[in-house]
């Protein structure tokens, strides 16, 4: 190659590199994968933009027709986190939320997309708010090993459910019909309903006992569901998880223990709710 062409090629190469640098030169780690924001931007425009909008603030053209509204990535207040309330989730939290989808909403499970695509999307989503750079993700909470469920654990959890006044929103039988339920609004003033345990649906942020633990120990940001991390010790939190499982019409170990115990002991139970105060 002539010298001029060589220099031209070098200059062109440098130009390309610097241009690539201006388009979200950001990478995030999700497990073994490295997501790339520039690649994620293209995929966002195909899969996400209709609801989440070109600016990532949840005002895509579909948003007006759906309820709950799509996540606003600019406000960056996320429901499903492993990190404390008021902090950003980890990249893995976002990846898991995208993969799982959100039951009872218009956010589908994106499991059919290759994992690398999902990782790229996570990287791009993290460019919408400056807080990813200024504050970074929160520190995930520690979830200690779950103790075995037994009737004592369930009864302690029941007492916690009463004391922390969960029934005010979730109702005394977990039907989501507590005294405050009808007036609940999310952080953008849209009406929102508390979780109804009696319909056997998956929780917003997963289906396991650990997912349930994480929900009330990190709060569901952007909704009325607060964090109880300051009020519960880990063993108390596991007791509450065991009790909550008895509210669901599912054949869980906890429900089995509860249903076996109940017929002989029902009369001993203190009522829940206002009568129990």
């Amino acid at each position, binding site marked *: 190659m002539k010298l001029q062409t060589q220099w031209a090629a070098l200059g062109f190469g440098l130009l390309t590199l610097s241009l690539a640098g201006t388009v979200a030169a950001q990478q995030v780690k999700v497990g073994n994968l490295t997501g790339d924001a520039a690649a994620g931007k293209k995929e966002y425009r195909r899969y996400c933009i209709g609801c989440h909008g070109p600016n990532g603030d949840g005002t895509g053209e579909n948003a007006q027709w759906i309820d709950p509204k799509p996540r606003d990535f600019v406000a960056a207040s996320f429901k499903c986190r492993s990190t404390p309330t008021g902090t950003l989730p980890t990249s893995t939290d976002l990846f898991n939320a995208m993969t799982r989808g959100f039951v009872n909403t218009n956010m589908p499970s994106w499991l059919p997309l290759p994992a690398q695509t999902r990782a790229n999307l996570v990287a791009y989503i993290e460019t919408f708010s400056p807080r990813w750079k200024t504050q970074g993700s929160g520190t995930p909470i520690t979830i200690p090993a779950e103790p075995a469920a037994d009737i004592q654990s369930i009864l302690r959890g029941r007492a916690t459910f009463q004391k922390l006044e969960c029934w005010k*929103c979730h109702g005394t039988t977990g039907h989501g019909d507590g005294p405050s339920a009808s007036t609940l609004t999310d952080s953008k003033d849209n009406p929102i309903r508390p979780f109804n345990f009696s319909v056997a649906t998956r929780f917003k942020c997963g289906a396991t006992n650990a997912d349930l633990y994480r929900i009330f120990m990190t709060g569901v940001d952007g909704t009325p569901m607060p964090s109880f991390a300051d009020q519960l010790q880990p063993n108390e939190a596991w007791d509450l998880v065991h009790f909550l499982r008895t509210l669901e019409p599912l054949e869980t170990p906890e429900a089995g223990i509860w249903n076996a115990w109940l017929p002989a002991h029902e009369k001993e139970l203190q009522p829940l709710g206002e009568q129990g105060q």
Partner: protein
Amino acid sequence: MRSTHLATLTITALAGSALLALAATRPPAAGTISGTVTFTGTPPKMKPIDMAKEPSCAKQHATPVMTENVVTGPNNSVQWAVVYVESAEAGGAAATEAARYDQKGCQYIPHVAVLQVNQPLDIYNDDQTSHNIHPLATVNPEWNKSQPPGAPPIHATYAKPEFIPVKCNVHPWMHGYFVVLNTSHYAVTGEDGAFSLKGLPPGKYTVTAWHEKFGKQSQEVTVGTGETPPVKFVFKALPY
């Protein structure tokens, strides 16, 4: 001796009266911007709050409390307006003493709490019922924490100036504000709608009055060495 005593007494008297005269003619405290926040028109009527869903709070009030989004006083004064000096960087002393916010009788006291950036804030639950404290920040991080009766105070700080609505999801009538400013020159109007910002060095200032329903108004005020004329903020009120 008598003449010396007389001389001393006279000099003292003269000096004393000179000082008195000086004090009488010295201008009032320079470096203060004061005034009032009032409204014209008809403001919306405040409504009584029905706390029947929370008997432990309802019984704390002999007569129902009223909503607080527009609280007015005599002479069309506006209460709960925050008047402050706009400044690009922090003005005045940094605040180290914690501000305090109470949940009492299912109300937020004070209705509007003003903080400086990074000033500690202590939030107390004085009631027999659980509250959740949910400041709806958009510039600062939004968090939501439960606070049962007897729980220790919740500590918070905010790093950026913002007007943050605060609500309790369990008790939907509870509304308040955290106003985070980057200056120590601020005041919250009481029932008389009056404010006074002290200790301002001479210069030109942009003074802003903010009210949760009426919005913001700003005026340019020059502080000289003499008394600054009173600053009047007048909001237009509509009955809805």
